């Protein structure tokens, strides 16, 4: 049914549960009429205010159009009105599941511009925190993806672990989601006493509970039936839209900034990058689960390496980056996060441009959803892991 313009299109809904009459208006020459279903911005499946408009023929998706911008808060503009220390408290909120990794990128950019020497211990602690943060993020998606496929329990299991980890991180940073632990030149304060011991313990706990997810979710026949072969993504398509993180790794491309362009001390330890084969929903989820495991491996290595020493450098009263620009990319939990930081020598950035992984990842959706069934579309929607704030900024 190509010529949609000959028919009156039903006005797409903006929210579920509203009373839109299913009137099959239109040209009488056509046997069936496409139904336009708006998933979101407050649909249970979109975890957040993402919206995707599906043109359905029966239950088959003919066209999927993501509509973004419902969570646009103007981060890039707001950052121009915060000084370099205040930015930390701002940027960790755009991808609210990976607060530490977000602020890490800005800290690295500022340090690069100011040519600061960051103490070793601070760098190792940053890695530790970033990996813990990665696990936090991935656990959330383990739970929510299973929830989207109709399994409610993994969410509760995932949050049990998340609460343990958040408790640990809170003891050092004082925050549960938004840590604001970085500052240019290092960290705000040192780790509290006994933190590393606790960290080892939590890592062991999470490691012993990890098989639960592999068995309960990944090993479930229904889960496999719902995800295997659903939404396969060829690597060239993934690369052409700039997808990164698990979405790209599932297609078999082992791209990971921690390996290909190591920052902090990632060059000194082994970082394993799990890859998938087909790039389907199952592989994306498989990569996600395995990234938890590799992060735990990294954490164990960091525990062995942790040096003593100071965690920050003395900062001037007013942090002013010299005139110039820099680009820093880090491996955020969801993919590659890039900051383009431009300064005119003042106390605030002149421009802070974000390259967020979620935005690039959701570009794959129109490709993935076309021709899929409605339940498969949901399966795809959940498996291309994204955070709405990270898309819209």
């Amino acid at each position: 049914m190509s010529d949609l313009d000959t028919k009156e299109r039903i006005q797409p809904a903006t929210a579920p549960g509203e009373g839109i009459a299913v009137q099959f208006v239109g040209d009488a020459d056509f046997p069936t009429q496409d139904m336009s279903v708006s998933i979101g911005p407050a649909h249970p499946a979109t975890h957040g205010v993402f919206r995707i408009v599906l043109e359905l023929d029966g239950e088959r998706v003919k066209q999927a159009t993501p509509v973004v911008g419902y969570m646009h808060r103007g981060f890039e503009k707001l950052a121009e009105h915060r000084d370099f220390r205040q930015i930390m408290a701002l940027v960790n909120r755009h991808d609210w599941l990976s607060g530490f990794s977000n602020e890490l990128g800005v800290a690295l950019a500022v340090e690069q511009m100011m040519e600061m020497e960051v103490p070793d211990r601070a760098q190792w602690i940053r890695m530790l925190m970033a990996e813990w943060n990665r696990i936090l993020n991935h656990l959330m998606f383990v739970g929510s993806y299973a929830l989207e496929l109709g399994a409610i329990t993994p969410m509760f299991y995932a949050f049990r672990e998340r609460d343990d980890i958040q408790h640990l991180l809170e003891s050092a940073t004082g925050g549960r989601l938004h840590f604001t632990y970085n500052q240019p030149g290092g960290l705000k304060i040192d780790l509290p006493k006994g933190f590393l011991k606790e960290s080892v313990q939590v890592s062991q706990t999470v490691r012993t509970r990890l098989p639960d997810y592999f068995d309960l979710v990944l090993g479930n026949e229904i889960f496999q039936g719902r995800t295997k072969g659903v939404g396969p993504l060829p690597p060239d398509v993934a690369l052409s839209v700039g997808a990164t993180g698990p979405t790209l790794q599932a297609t078999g491309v082992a791209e990971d900034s921690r390996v290909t362009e190591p920052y902090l001390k990632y060059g000194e330890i082994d970082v394993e990058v799990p890859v998938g084969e087909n790039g389907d929903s199952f592989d994306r989820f498989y990569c996600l689960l395995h990234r938890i495991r590799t992060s735990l491996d990294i954490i164990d290595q960091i525990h062995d390496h942790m040096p003593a020493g100071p965690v920050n450098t003395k900062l001037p009263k007013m942090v002013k980056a010299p005139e110039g620009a820099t680009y820093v990319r880090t491996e955020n939990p969801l993919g590659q996060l890039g900051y383009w930081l431009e300064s005119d020598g003042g106390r605030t950035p002149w421009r802070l441009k974000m390259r967020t992984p979620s935005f690039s990842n959701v570009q794959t959706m129109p490709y993935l959803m076309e021709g899929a069934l409605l339940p498969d579309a949901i399966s795809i929607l959940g498996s291309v892991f994204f955070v709405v704030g990270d898309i819209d900024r």
Partner: protein
Amino acid sequence: MGLMDQVELPQPVKYVFNWGRKYSLWCFNFGLACCAIEFIAASTSRHDFIRHGVIPFAHGPRQADLLVVSGTLTDKMAPAVKRLYEEMPEPKYVISFGSCSNCGGPYWDSYSVTKGVDQIIPVDVYVPGCPPRPEALLDGIIALQDRIQNESLKDRMADRRKDPITLGADAPLALGSSS
């Protein structure tokens, strides 16, 4: 509805009805941003507000009694919130969870953020924090339940915006006070 918002019910009936509403707050989570994660944390095993009868399995607004607006409300999203609120059947309650939905939070100077959800819908309980801890949400829920137990539906329907609860307005937030 219809009758109950116009007639003052006799005390025993009112008690039973209020008790029913108090312990059956099916909750529609309007998860917008960061606070939605803390909302989910509050619903899961450690904090577990389901034991208070706050059931988070209402998928649509039609079955919900309690709307928890958690996160930053943008101007683009505001009509949807308004619409969802209006789709909920009376009697309905609203908890504004987090600084963003209270007043705009860290984005107070942003061009695209609505500075407070109470600009478009009436709010019963404000829970401050950025994001508030799950315990704060529990505190807000208990405060709301106390109010429901003692309220008169007639008065409530007459003036919905009367005297909202603001947690921690006069006393420090009682963390972990959930029973």
